Structures are given as C-alpha cells and as structure tokens.
C-alpha cells in the first residue's frame, strides 16, 4: 500500500501554518486518500487503478493549498482575492517566519531575503541608491583611513600615553622654534623626578657615506641612548645604543641602520652587525638595524621621518659639546608610572626655575612646557583632518538623505501593499522591520561597493597626497577602517530607513485600503521638502568651505615669494670630509660656482647657507650699535651666508645700498646685507646703510659689521609664513661646507637639472649631490598640503552639489507627477504654460532658498573652526558665501527646470481623464 502520508506531504505546498497544524492537515488528507484507496480496492479495482482513483480526488494540490490557506488564515476574502501575487507572497512569508519559531536571526535573514527580492523588483531605484551609498561610504572609509592613521590612532610606540614632548622657549621670543640645549638636558635629568627617561634628539643632520659606491649624502639623526628604549623600539638585528656609547664628550663611533638602508645597501644581510660604515671619512661600527615599520613621527623630523637612514649616539654629534646657549635638541620624556602629565609639567617647570637662577645669562626668561607627544604630532594635521572628516561625513549624510527620499517615494508607491499587509495581520512593528530591512539591504550592498571604491580611492589619495603628509606610512583599509565602515553603513541604513519607517508608525493603516491609499502616503510632502532643505543647507556648507579654501589658496599663490622662481634651479652638496679649513672651503665653494656657471644654459650661479622653502635655519643674536641692552636682553635674527651673485641669481631685489661683491671677499667680513624686515625692526625711519651691528652670543669678542645693503623680504619658510629679520654675511667671511647652489638658466630650469650633478662632481667626485629642484617645484611643494586639502574639499563640494541637485530634482519631479491632474485643471482653466513653469520653479526655488539661508547661517557658525586653514581670507568672506549660494541656486534651478518643463507639456485633457 502506498504511503499516503508522505505522498500528501510531498504534494501539498507549504501552507504557512504552524508546524503541528500543518502536520494535522497532511495526516487528515492522507487518511482521505487512504480510505478512498481502500474502498477502490474493495471495489475490485487493481492497486494501480485504485491509487489513481484516490489521487484523482486531489488533482490540483496548489489550488487545494491555497484554499486551505484561505480558510485557515484570518484573511478577509475580499482583500485576499484582490491581492497581487507578490503581496500574497509577502503574507505567506510572514507566516513562514512564524513557523520557524521566530528567532531573531531567522527573522532578520528572512526580512533581508524579502528585502533583496523587493530591491530586485525595483532595480533601477536600487542601483541609484546603492551607487549613492557606495560613493558616500567609500569616500568616508578612504578618508577615515587616512585621518585615523595620521591623527587619531595612538602613536605606534610602547605605552604612547606616557610619552611627553618637552620644550623650552624664550619668553620674549615665543615665535622661535622651541629647542633645548645639551647642558640643560643633562641638568634636567638630574633635577626632575617625574621621568624614567629624558631622551634628546638632534636636528636632522647631513652625513656623507663613502665606500659604498658614489659618495652619498644621507639625512641622519643623533639621539641619546635612552631614545629607543623610551619608545620601546626593538631592533630587527643587533642592538640599540648603550649608555656607555653615549657619554658626553666620548660619543662612540657606532651607527644604527634604518631597515630601508639595510635592504638597499646591505641586501638585508643579517651578519651586518660589527661591519664598518665610512661616515664623513671615519669608520663607524654598525650595531643594529631598526624595524621596518619604525618611524619617529615627532619633531624635528615631522614630515620627513621616512628619510632618516642612519642613527648615531647623540654624544657623537659635534655640537653635543656646545655651550648652554646653543639650543638645538628636541626632547621627549617618559613619565614614571602614576605620575600625571600635570605633575610632570610642574616638576619640569620648577627644575627650569632652578636653572634660570643658576644660569641667568642663558636660562633666565626661558619657559618650560610639556605636552603629550601624540598631541604634538597629530596636532599639526588635526585641523585639516577634522575638516576632511567633517566634509566627507556631510557627503554621506547627503547621500543618505537622497536614499531616504528614494525609499520614501518607493514606500509611498507601495502604500497599498503596506495597507494590505497590515490588513493581513502584519503589525506595525513587522512592517517597520521590513522597511528597515530594505534600507539595511541597500546599505549592505552599498557598503560592499563602497569598500571596493574605498580601496581604489585610497590608492589614488595615497599616491596624490604630499609626502610631507603621509611620511611614508603605510595606509591601508585595516580592521579599524572596516569597523568604521560597518558603523557608517549601519548609520546609513538607520538614517535612510527612518523616514519611511516613521511614516509607517504614524500612518493610518486601517484606511490605507481605500483606492488612493492615502492613509499611508498623505502628508509626506512636507517631510520630503524638509529633507531637501536640509540637503541644500549641507551642500552650501561644503561649498562655502571649498570656496573659502580656494580663495585662500589663490591668494597664497599670489603671494610674491620675494624671489623670482622662474628659470631658477638648485642643487645641494657637502664638501668632502677632508676639507676642514675655511680657506680650502672657500676655494671649493668658488670652484663649484665657476663650474656651475659654465654649464650650458646657465646665466649665473650663487650659493647660500639655507635656501628658501627648504628646511630650517639657525638664528643668531644681533647687537645693534647705539642700542643699550639690559642684562640678559638679546634679539634674534635669521642668519644666512650668501655668495655675491646669490641675490641676482635668485632675483631677490636690492632695495638700498649694494649687494656683496668680490671686494668683500678680499676684505673678509666686515659687511652684511639685511632684509626689509630687519631694516624696519632695527632702524625704523632711517637708512640702515652704514649702520653697524655685531652677531653672536658674545658681542664683546666680535668685530663690528657694517650694513651695506638692504634686500627685499623672502618667504623663507613658506608662502604662508611671515618673513622675519634676516642678516646675510658674505661667503668669504664664512665659507659654506654645505652650500645650497642656485643657477639662473636661459630656458626651462627643470630640464637643466640633470646637468648640475656633473658640475659638482667636476670639483670633487667625493661630494654627494641632493635636493635638486627647480625653484618653481619647491614653491609648488610648499603648497602641496593646502592643494591636496583643497582638491579633496572641492571634490566633496562637487559631490554635494550633485547630490543636492539629485535630491531637489527627485522631490520636484515627484511632486509634479502627483500634481499632473492639478496642472491639467489649471491649464484647462486658462493658466498658460509660463504660469505652470513659474509655479513649479518657484516651488523648487523656495526650497533652495530656504536651504541656502539655513546653510549660510550654519556655515557662518562653522567656518571659524577652519580659520587656521584659511590664508588671508575671513571665515565670513562674503564672496565665498556668495559664490557658494549662487552656484547652488543655479544648480537647483537647473534641477527644477527639467520637471518644470515636463509639467508644461501636460495635456489638460489627458491629465483630467487620468484616474
């Protein structure tokens, strides 16, 4: 006998009833079959015929299932009969879910599956929404990754919270870079109790390595022995410095290699320890190799940390033995466990006060300060990073608003479906969850696409970002970025799903079944208008920000650097280590200038101790004749050495007197050229020509120097940095061991760069060449961070403009579509097409204007926070606000024009017949 139960179970489609009930039905139907079969057998039919007769009773199983379902479920038959198939599906799914026992996960999975099915039905809409979310999420992930790496995450050192950056400044020269002298550091170690270690770091040093192929100039650092243990750095090979190797006055000739240098110059040979490296002509023993990912991110190498190739003990530096007034160190400290930053700072200050009493000549008026190292490091880029994060965040909010708007449109068009499902017994909560599942499904797909986009975008950004910003750090989408992305995606889903969900919660579902379904759809216009206004105001904020930065940047590029950068190229070198006497150095400097002047295409060549826009400078104290100085009072100036031809070659204008000439060389010293700022600062209202000054820490030991010329101010440290008083001495008075050479060319400066190293090597092949640029490239490099920020912000502003346009277009189109009848009626009653056009446009413009006003008010409050990024532009710059407002208005008008024109083409008759 056939197994009728399994036969019934196999043939009856799932009913969507509870498990036990479903089994009951199967059993009952099976019995019907079984009994009919038994009876047929009794009628002497063969088993085959008997089975056929039994089966014939239930020929159409799906119809039977539908009938049973209808009977079993609390369905108003009138509704059920008119429900489209896919809505019925929804109702069934709803029941299936109940049967599964209603676990949270199963619910969620089920909701998502249904959501994906709905999205497939509306694939055009889904693609649009996913695209917008992908863009918003992708851009956010990429920017977050950069911001996180550069400004948010803790420093990659052992216990970074315990690291302090320690600085001292002269109170009346607060503008000078804070450095600490070697002797002060030694005293501080003894006189403070709060620190387990105080490590000193030299300025970036240039050392020449020979014996490894061509002489190579390398950027190096000299650090005290406790530097690496303080940061918790374990060398990859060998060891770091011992305290014995860093004894003051007896620095050992040992060297640590950077990982990159080890790879390129020693082929990652693990037996490198103990080998010698010729540095400045003397052998240094290699003691270890630093880890691959080690970068010191703090001063003095902030911005160039990837370039340091060799590390030496601080005491091995020639200026380690300099007197107390020579301040050249950066100092980091690690606080003892249990000591707070405030306590450490107090401790430091009281030690500083003791020093001031003990050494009033050098330490009186010096202020000591300590701040968390992480803050010092990320503080440089934090305003920029926060601006980027804020901007890209706004873009995401706008994308979400657009998706919310789209979802709302879809929800409204599904008003009847919602009503039917409510009538079929779906609770509000159930419907709410379904709508949220749809926005989650969108967000999930958007996130997947967004992550791919983030990868691409991040690669693009990392390759386009200025080196000074990224410092060679690896920036990848790591787990933190993924966590952020997922968080952003969930926020997107909630935010974009909220408006339709809100409508469900508030809608009059019971009346939703009426023909127009208004119970669900009514009153959404005001909400959508609100969304659009909010979008426009956000877009305005971004546009204002971009406009402010752009105007600032244009002004920055307009800044006269103080020299004529066109057709000037530069190259730097170091005299061979064997050259130690000034006359030899002078001869080599002159030979270098001669060689460069002979390079075809070169008009003139000059040399200077520090080139504009290329790193720092050491200052000097200046003593002006006729000025009486109180004890301890002194004034600092920038100090430079220049060859006679330097000013003309650079195109730095001579204001008064004369530049240096060859005569100054014979009559070594005795003369100086100053800049405008110095003239104003020291001889305001009179001519400085012929006035006398002394330089240095001990004026009584110095000869008088006469000012013979005044040149224009040069922006030495960047177009956005103020010029400070400068004094130039002639090359002959202080020959350059590390000359920065400049040439003025007949043609393109950049194309001449390859021929410059030959001229240097013609003097001595033992001299390295480096820092070879056209001056124009240097200017561009000095603005690279601002340019990068500007490009990004402009990109975000453009995206915002596009998203706002899409938002306003969508809303106006929707409104026009729903008012087709009204338009037709108006036109039938005599309204002209112009009237209709005006009506639609004014509706859009009202929204745009409201958004612009709101956005302008918000921007006015916000832009002050980016003041530090603006160059010579007020945060309330009216032009920037006007540009932003007008462009947004124009785009809004354009976005409204399309639906407005569509409205004018409404045929009154068709419109009235509609519905």
């Amino acid at each position, binding site marked *: 006998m056939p197994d009728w139960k399994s036969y019934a179970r196999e043939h009856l489609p799932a009913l969507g009833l509870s498990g036990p009930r479903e089994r009951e039905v199967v059993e009952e*139907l099976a*019995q019907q079959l079984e009994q009919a079969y038994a009876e047929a057998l009794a009628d002497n039919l063969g088993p085959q015929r008997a089975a056929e007769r039994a089966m014939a009773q239930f*020929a159409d199983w799906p119809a039977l299932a539908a009938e049973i379902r209808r009977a079993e479920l609390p369905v108003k038959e009138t509704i059920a009969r008119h429900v489209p198939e896919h809505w019925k599906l929804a109702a069934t799914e709803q029941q299936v879910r109940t049967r599964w026992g209603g676990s949270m996960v199963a619910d969620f999975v089920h909701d998502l599956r249904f959501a994906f099915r709905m999205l497939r039905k509306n694939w055009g809409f889904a693609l649009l929404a996913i695209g917008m979310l992908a863009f918003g999420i992708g851009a956010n992930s990429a920017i977050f990754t950069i911001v996180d790496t550069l400004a948010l995450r803790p420093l990659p050192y052992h216990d970074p919270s315990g690291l302090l950056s320690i600085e001292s400044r002269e109170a009346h020269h607060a503008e000078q870079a804070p450095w600490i002298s070697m002797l002060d550091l030694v005293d501080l170690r003894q006189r403070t109790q709060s620190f387990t270690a105080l490590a000193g770091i030299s300025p970036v040093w240039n050392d020449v390595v020979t014996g490894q192929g061509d002489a190579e100039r390398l950027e190096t650092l000299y650090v005290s022995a406790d530097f690496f243990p303080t940061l918790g750095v374990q060398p990859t090979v060998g060891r770091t410095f011992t305290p014995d190797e860093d004894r003051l006055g007896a620095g050992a000739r040992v060297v640590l290699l950077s990982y990159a240098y080890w790879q390129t110059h020693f082929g990652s040979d693990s037996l490198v320890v103990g080998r010698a490296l010729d540095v400045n002509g003397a052998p240094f023993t290699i003691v270890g190799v630093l880890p691959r990912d080690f970068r010191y991110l703090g001063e003095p190498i902030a911005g160039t940390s990837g370039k340091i190739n060799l590390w030496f003990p601080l005491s091995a530096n020639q200026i380690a033995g300099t007197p107390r007034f020579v301040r050249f160190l950066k100092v980091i400290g690690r606080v003892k466990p249990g000591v707070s930053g405030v306590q450490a700072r107090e401790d430091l200050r009281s030690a500083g006060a003791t020093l001031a009493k003990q050494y009033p000549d050098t330490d009186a008026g010096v202020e000591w300060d300590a701040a968390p190292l992480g803050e010092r490091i990320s503080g440089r880029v934090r305003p920029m990073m926060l601006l980027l994060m804020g901007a890209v965040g706004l873009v995401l909010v706008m994308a979400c608003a657009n998706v919310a708007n789209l979802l709302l449109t879809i929800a409204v068009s599904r008003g009847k479906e919602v009503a039917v499902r409510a009538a079929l017994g779906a609770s509000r909560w159930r419907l709410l969850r379904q709508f949220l599942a749809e926005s989650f499904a969108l967000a999930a797909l958007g996130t997947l696409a967004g992550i791919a986009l983030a990868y691409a975008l991040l690669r693009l950004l990392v390759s386009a970002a200025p080196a000074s910003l990224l410092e060679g750090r690896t920036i990848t989408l790591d787990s933190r970025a993924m966590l952020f992305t997922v968080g952003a995606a969930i926020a997107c889903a909630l935010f974009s799903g909220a408006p339709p969900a809100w409508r469900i919660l508030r809608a009059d579902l019971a009346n939703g079944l009426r023909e127009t379904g208004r119970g669900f759809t009514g009153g959404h216009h005001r909400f959508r208008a609100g969304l659009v206004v909010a979008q426009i105001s956000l877009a305005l904020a971004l546009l204002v920000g971009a406009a402010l930065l752009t105007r600032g940047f244009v002004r920055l590029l307009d800044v006269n650097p103080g020299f004529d950068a066109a057709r000037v190229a530069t190259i730097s070198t170091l005299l061979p280590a064997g050259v130690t006497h000034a006359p030899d150095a002078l001869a080599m400097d002159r030979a270098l200038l001669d060689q460069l002047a002979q390079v075809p295409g070169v008009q003139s060549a000059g040399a200077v101790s520090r080139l504009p826009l290329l790193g720092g400078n050491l200052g000097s104290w200046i003593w002006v004749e006729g000025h009486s100085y109180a004890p301890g009072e002194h004034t600092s100036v920038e100090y430079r050495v220049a060859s006679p031809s330097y000013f003309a070659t650079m195109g730095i204008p001579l204001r008064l007197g004369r530049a240096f000439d060859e005569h100054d060389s014979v009559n070594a010293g005795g003369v100086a050229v100053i800049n405008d700022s110095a003239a104003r600062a020291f001889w305001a209202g009179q001519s400085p020509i012929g006035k006398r000054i002394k330089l240095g820490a001990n004026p009584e030991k110095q000869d008088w120097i006469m000012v013979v010329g005044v040149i224009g101010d040069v922006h030495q440290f960047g177009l956005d940095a103020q010029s400070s008083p400068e004094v130039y001495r002639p090359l002959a008075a202080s020959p350059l061991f590390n000359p920065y050479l400049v040439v003025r060319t007949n043609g393109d400066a950049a194309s001449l760069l390859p021929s410059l190293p030959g001229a240097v090597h013609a003097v001595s092949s033992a001299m390295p060449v480096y820092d070879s640029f056209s001056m124009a490239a240097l200017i561009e490099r000095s603005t690279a961070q601002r340019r990068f920020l500007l490009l990004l912000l402009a990109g975000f502003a453009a995206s915002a403009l596009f998203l706002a346009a899409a938002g306003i277009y969508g809303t106006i189109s929707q409104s026009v579509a729903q008012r087709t009848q009204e338009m037709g009626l108006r036109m039938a009653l005599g309204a002209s097409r112009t009237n209709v056009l005006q009506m639609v446009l004014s509706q859009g413009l009202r929204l745009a204007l409201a958004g612009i006003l709101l956005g302008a008010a918000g921007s006015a409050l916000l832009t002050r926070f980016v003041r530090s990024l603006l160059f010579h532009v007020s945060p309330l710059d009216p032009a920037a606000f006007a540009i932003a407002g007008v462009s947004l208005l124009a785009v809004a008008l354009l976005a409204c024009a399309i639906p407005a024109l569509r409205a004018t083409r409404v045929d009154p008759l068709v419109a009235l017949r509609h519905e």
Partner: protein
Amino acid sequence: MQSEVKKGSAEVLILSLIEARPRHGYEIAKLIEERSGGVIEFHVASLYPMLYRLEKRGWIEGRWLEKAGQRRRRYYRLTAAGRKALPEQRRSWREFIRAIQDVAQVESA
C-alpha cells in the same frame, strides 16, 4: 454569486450532517455524495478547506479520536455556536431556494 450559492449549500450540508453526531472527513464526503444522489457535484478537494473554514469560524470543532484497532481520525462535531447558527443558515438557505424557485416559475410561466 454562483460560487456563494454552492458554498452556502455545502456548508449547510456539512453542518446538518454532523448535527446528530461527530463524523470524520471521509464519512462526511461519502454522505454528501450518497444523500444528494450525485445531484450535488461535490469535490472532495473542497471539503477540507470548508471544514477548516467552519472550524475557524467556531461553528464546528475537530478532534482526534482513536478507536480500537483503527488509525486515529479527526472527528468534527457541531459547537454551541454552530448549533445556534444552523437554523439561521437553514432559513436563509430555504429563502434562497424559494427565491430561485419563484424566479424559475416566473421564467417558465
């Protein structure tokens, strides 16, 4: 209307059949077929949904009963509500039949 008539007739039949004592599905189907002498075209397939509908409505109640040596079967009996509804159903049914007859007579006359 046709289907409503059919359904109404079948419902009255079912309710009447189990008025005296509970019966199971197969029995009900068999009785309808026999008593109407084949006049009422009745599909077994529509019996069970109808039973379930009546049950949902609270007029009948199904219960699994086991008799010695037999498989358990689901027996349907009339509930109090069903008992109360039956006369009303019968009346409206008769009225309907009468109306049909009236129309039919007018037509044939």
